[in-house]
């Protein structure tokens, strides 16, 4: 019994960086859950993946200027990520390109630019840190920033929750009764970029979107309303963070991929055995 306790809790009691990592995962999970669910319902999953790549050059510029400074990299990531998101949206509105193609074009350029900038100043290890994150990179400053981002996310979502939900369900209705759909959409984009930036210290720029999308996709198999989907997604994200940190600690692998793989396992298990619309329930329905 003690062995199991030591295995599951010991690293967090023993090491401050593990506690900070877990606290960061808790903060990220609370914000990423609802944001991920809304991304999924707005059919923006792949676009959010593109946006996560778009923060790389900004983080790289921050790294180029100030080294592995969480604040500099986060500010750079936020500014460039948001700029790329708005530019990709603008290109799709004023040209014949659809939004997905426009985002893909920008994200490929961003990825290439980011890798180039990091390799100009740092080595392969630095690049790995930026791309895949490290729980060691979560210092007090990064933790405070993740907490502020989560608080801001929850407050803004509470205020614009209903218009966002209506815009997913029936955009023309919102347009007819309110007319501020673009404002809500752009506020939501800001929240997405903020949460991506908040996550990249622990998860890396390539992986931070995983804590939004995978738990939200898994939650679709367990809950049926938007608010309950957000709660379940946050719980999945927190469980993935906890188990991923343990996995990363014991196997000595980067924390980002470890956490996202744990979220991926929750997703696969949900596909197979979830309560609604899973392979199991569809099989049972067919047998009736």
């Amino acid at each position: 019994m003690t062995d199991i306790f030591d295995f599951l809790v010991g690293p967090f009691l023993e090491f401050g960086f593990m506690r900070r990592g877990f606290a960061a995962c808790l903060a990220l999970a609370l914000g990423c859950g609802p944001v991920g669910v809304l991304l999924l319902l707005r059919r923006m999953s792949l676009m959010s993946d593109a946006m996560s790549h778009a923060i790389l050059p900004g983080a790289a510029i921050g790294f180029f200027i100030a080294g592995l400074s969480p604040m500099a990299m986060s500010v750079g990531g936020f500014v460039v990520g948001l700029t790329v998101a708005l530019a990709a949206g603008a290109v799709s509105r004023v040209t014949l390109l659809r939004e997905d193609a426009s985002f893909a074009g920008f994200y490929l350029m961003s990825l290439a630019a980011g890798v180039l900038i990091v390799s100009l100043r740092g080595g392969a290890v630095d690049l790995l840190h930026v791309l895949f994150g490290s729980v060691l990179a979560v210092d007090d400053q990064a933790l405070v920033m993740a907490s502020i981002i989560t608080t801001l996310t929850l407050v803004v979502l509470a205020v614009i929750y209903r218009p966002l939900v209506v815009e997913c369900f029936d955009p023309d209705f919102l347009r007819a009764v309110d007319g501020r759909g673009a404002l809500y959409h752009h506020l939501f984009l800001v929240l997405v970029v903020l949460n991506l930036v908040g996550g990249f210290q622990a998860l890396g720029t390539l992986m931070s979107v995983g804590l939004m999308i995978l738990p939200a996709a898994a939650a679709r198999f367990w809950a049926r309303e938007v608010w309950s989907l957000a709660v379940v997604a946050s719980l999945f994200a927190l469980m993935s963070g906890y188990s991923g940190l343990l996995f990363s600690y014991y196997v000595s692998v980067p924390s980002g991929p470890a956490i996202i793989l744990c979220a991926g396992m929750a997703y696969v298990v949900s596909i197979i055995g979830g309560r609604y619309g899973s392979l199991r329930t569809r099989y049972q329905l067919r047998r009736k």
Partner: protein
Amino acid sequence: MPSVIQLENVTYGYDRNSVVWRVSGSFAQGSMTAVVGPNGGGKSTLLKGIMGWLRAWNGRVVWQGLSLADVGYLPQRVEIDRSFPMTVLDAVLLGFWRQCGGWRSMTAAMKARARQALVEVGLPECENRLIGGLSSGQFQRVLFARLMVQDARVLLLDEPFSAIDAGTAEHLLCLARQWHVEGRTIIAVLHDFDQVRRFFPETLLLAREIIGWGATSEILIPPFLSQARVAADVWDQRSKAA
């Protein structure tokens, strides 16, 4: 009757192709008008233009004594995400947007009114079902219940009776007629001429340009209908050439 919506020589288009060409006329207060015409004839575009969502290439639409809150719009069902995780009651309660906006809570009286609307559209005891589990006809009833609680003076309906069963269509058409009797202005894009003849006193026949606009019995006649088909073909050829 005074007009509530005035169209003054409006032209709308996408890319370089005009879809609605120099349409002028007015919808009288309390009128019930069907907008009919061939596919691609600009019917839905005209409704979106009336809502102010498209920039007119030419001319203008004038709302007379109307605000956004006075106009209810029912989009085509393909533009609504029917897999969205939302209960029937929540979908109907959205009709109270004018009173509650984005964040004020719904009152018990609003919920009671929404439940009553569900009864009136023939969906009692469905309030806790998810919209994804409804048939097309049931879903359309939910949208009509939302319109009922919205209580708008002018209703713009884009293909409200397509792809639903005949019984549901008949029920919803009767509701629309009831709204007309109450003095609301109804403008609906329709395809079924039989429904138009039985329920809509006025018809606008549109094939990008106006072919006819007036009493239904005077518009839905073979000469106008064949003229609409010819006009649609001519416009299609022009679009391809452009």
